[in-house]
């Protein structure tokens, strides 16, 4: 299945960047979590190994095959999510976890991959300049099923990450101005309804504290404030590895997960942040460039949706930890502790590499 020519097309730079970021993550997770029990950095290393294996597994199969199976995969994932709603026990207030042996996984992460594939499959035949209503409605319906189930878990942060996927597909497919306007009105109606009838109080609070972080120093505003203090007090060169008072004395919340970049900001300063941001920019630019190499429409869609998904998670996280976006519970891809997130990111990048490897029509 993988001959020599395909192997020679393997993108070493991208894999190198992904591994480098993951390992930096392990170091920062160590710094953030060594003060508490549970060797999180070791578990993350295990997950990196598992994820890397998954990435190569994805490379083995031509993405055309994956596309042809996408509808079944998507259906299966929705069924699993529904079953989760019915049978899962509450863990940390949500029903988003499925226990596999000693590890726990979040099926919602895999649902993103399924959605990317199914949307690419849907728009592969779409050649017009603008998308028409039937396909638009179908696309939204395909996305709505997993999103609704994830919202109900309730895991607003993860649900939000489905947005760039759908948006990415629609941007490429093309939306007329009136379609956008009608959609916005619909979205506003749904948003208003959601605010009043669906969102829980703590979720509303997260949104309102963004506007007035100082008003609530012990709740969500406390997290943002502590994170800003950590980043700001880092200065140019930082306080040094394992020497950040905010991180080591546990003022910083969710240090090894959502706020892991704040630890970088505190201990390695602006220079550390700049290097990391540079690495991400390099990775994202690389992904966007691959879009231009894809041999077919479905390939472009997949690469673009993956790139936009990662970019979205990246921007939301870096804006969140510095107080420019609400605390949504979206981790920083590759760096934050969390196996499911890591696995889905590796698989998504695997898809991109798969497309790049098989960019020549005559293979």
């Amino acid at each position: 299945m993988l001959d020599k020519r395909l192997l020679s097309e393997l993108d070493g730079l991208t894999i190198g960047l992904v591994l480098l970021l993951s390992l930096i993550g392990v170091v920062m997770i160590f710094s953030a979590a060594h003060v508490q029990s549970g060797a999180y950095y070791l578990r993350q290393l295990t997950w990196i190994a598992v994820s890397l294996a998954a990435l190569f597994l994805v490379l083995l199969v031509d993405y055309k095959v994956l596309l042809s199976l996408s509808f079944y995969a998507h259906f299966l994932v929705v069924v699993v999510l529904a079953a989760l709603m019915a049978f899962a026990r509450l863990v940390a207030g949500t029903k988003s976890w499925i226990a596999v042996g000693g590890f726990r996984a979040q099926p919602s992460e895999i649902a993103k991959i399924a959605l990317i594939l199914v949307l690419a499959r849907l728009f592969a035949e779409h050649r017009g300049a603008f998308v028409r209503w039937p396909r638009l409605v179908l696309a939204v319906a395909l996305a709505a099923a997993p999103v609704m189930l994830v919202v109900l878990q309730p895991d607003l942060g993860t649900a939000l990450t489905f947005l760039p996927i759908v948006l990415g597909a629609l941007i490429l497919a093309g939306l007329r101005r009136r379609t956008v306007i009608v959609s916005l009105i619909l979205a506003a109606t749904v948003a208003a309804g959601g605010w009043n009838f669906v969102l829980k109080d703590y979720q509303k609070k997260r949104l309102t504290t963004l506007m007035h972080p100082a008003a609530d120093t012990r709740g969500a505003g406390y997290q943002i404030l502590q994170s800003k203090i950590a980043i700001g007090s880092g200065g140019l060169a930082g306080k040094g590895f394992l020497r950040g008072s905010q991180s080591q004395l546990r003022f910083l919340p969710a240090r090894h997960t959502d706020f892991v970049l704040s630890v970088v900001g505190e201990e390695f300063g602006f220079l550390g942040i700049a290097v990391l941001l540079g690495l991400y920019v390099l990775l994202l630019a690389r992904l966007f460039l691959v879009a231009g190499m894809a041999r077919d429409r479905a390939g472009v869609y997949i690469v673009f949706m993956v790139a936009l998904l990662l970019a979205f998670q990246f921007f939301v996280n870096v804006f969140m930890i510095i107080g420019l976006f609400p605390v949504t519970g979206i981790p920083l891809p590759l760096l934050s502790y969390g196996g499911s997130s890591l696995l889905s990111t590796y698989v998504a990048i695997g898809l991109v590499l798969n497309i790049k490897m098989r960019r020549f029509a005559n293979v």
Partner: protein
Amino acid sequence: MMRERIYEDLTLILRRARVVLYLCAALCVFLFIYYWKVQILDHGKYWKLAEANRTRVRVLTAPRGLIRDRDGGILADNTVGFRVSLDREVTPDLESSVAAMSRLLELDPEVLKERLAKTGDGATLQPVVVKDNLTLEEVSRLESRRLELPEVVVEAEPKRAYPRHRFAAHILGYLQIMAPEDLQSPLGKRHRPNEMAGKTGIERQYDAVLTGTDGTLYEVVDSFGRSRGEISRREPVQGRDLWLALDSELQQKAEELLGDREGAIVVLDTRTGELLTLASFPTFDPNGFISRFTPQEWVDLASNPTFPLENRAIRGLYSPGSIFKMVMALGGLDAGVVGPGTMFSCAGSTIIYGNPFGCWLASGHGPMNLSDAIKNSCNIYFYQVGRRLGIDQIANYARLAGLGRMTGLDLPGEKDGLVPSTEWKLKTANAPWFPGETISVAIGQGPLLVTPLQIACVTAFVARRGVPVTPRLARDEDPPPAPDRVDLPASVFERVVEGMWRSVNDGGTGRAAAVDGFNICGKTGSTQVISRERAAQLARQGREVKTHSWFSGFAPRDEPRIAVTVLVEYGGGGGALAAVLARDLFELYARKYAR
């Protein structure tokens, strides 16, 4: 053309992808700039916030100085007490914290909330002390929940202790948190809110001396408020020790003598004005209520009808009765209304201004001079002296002797008593003075009011032959300037002293006070505390009517060293009780010092 056939035309969607790429690039530029702003431009601000996060300043309460008696014995000491406070800065949910604490401390949640609310809004982030004097059991109960309740802070602090309990309690006073009205005073500026400060007695008077300088401790804490080490530390400096003139042996004896009677005893060193004894009974044990919170024990004492919290020696107002004859004799001699040889005859009663006035001895004393009159405490003689002097001259001599104003003792709350005059009557009652009232005042009754300490000072004034004395408790604190000798001839004092000597040593009313070889001079007093009609009524019912019992004297006659004043409420005749008690004190003093 090959490309056209094999590959799809993707230029449109790639163009759209490129637009998104540019948008992302723009976001990245903004990101760099914003992180630059936070990390480089605003670095100082966040650095300070991080430092404030991780450092905590703790006040190390300085122990108060010790209070010692004249031999160095410790009267007020320090032990360790535990207090628990709530740090509202790290309190996630006040309701649940209050619920947990009220359960662990067995305190009513309402009481707890009230204590939290009382601290005002100025220091909302300061930990609030919610209970002190914890038992060890309470401390361990709280400490075992250290992790669940990081906002609950248990700290050890120096705690005042009075090792001899009720002993000299009125002199020492006790501590309480400051009343709101004290906050603006120098006392309030010296103490932090909710800290214990001197409330009464020596603790209050010398609070500035006894209060030490609190230390500070800067320490690193984590987000749970747990200490992770010290940064710097300034040790607290204990307050200065205070040495009192108090002689514990005499004080102890005086308190024993009073037993369970209500009264006061003052022993004064006539040479220096130092107070060797200042006893008041009933008394109290301040150890039970050294707390920030009004303890039930204190409330009970404050509402007790016998007023155990009152220092009767300096705040009790009594008629001096026959004790006042010392002053009357001085005045009569100085004004020349009587001479040493002036005789009056006592027939047991007399009629003055148309009203009958009796002597305490119904059968009468017969003819007597001034010396005899003092010795026998004859009322008839002093009625005549009073009638001749008139109220305003009496008032002048009373003030000259030190009555009607505070003695200047270094204790707070002293009362100044009352010396009546025509002016006073006009001002307070808007009525003229009736000459008949003068006759009552002449034997120390009527509106005239004195404290036992004032009487001790009058006695010292006579003993010093006209040099007033300012009583002092603290030995080494700067004393006030010694008062000047008053303008009375020495011979006047010798006549009065002679009468007082004969009262004790020549079979007079004070004879029960006599101690062999210790030339005591004294004067007794028995004051009616109820009206004559009421007394007669009670006597008819067969109930015993007792007067307040006074004795005041000094010794030795020449070169006097101490003055002793005894007052026993409802003690009966001065010669029968007060003089007996005084004798024991003179004897103890003579044994300890004079020989």
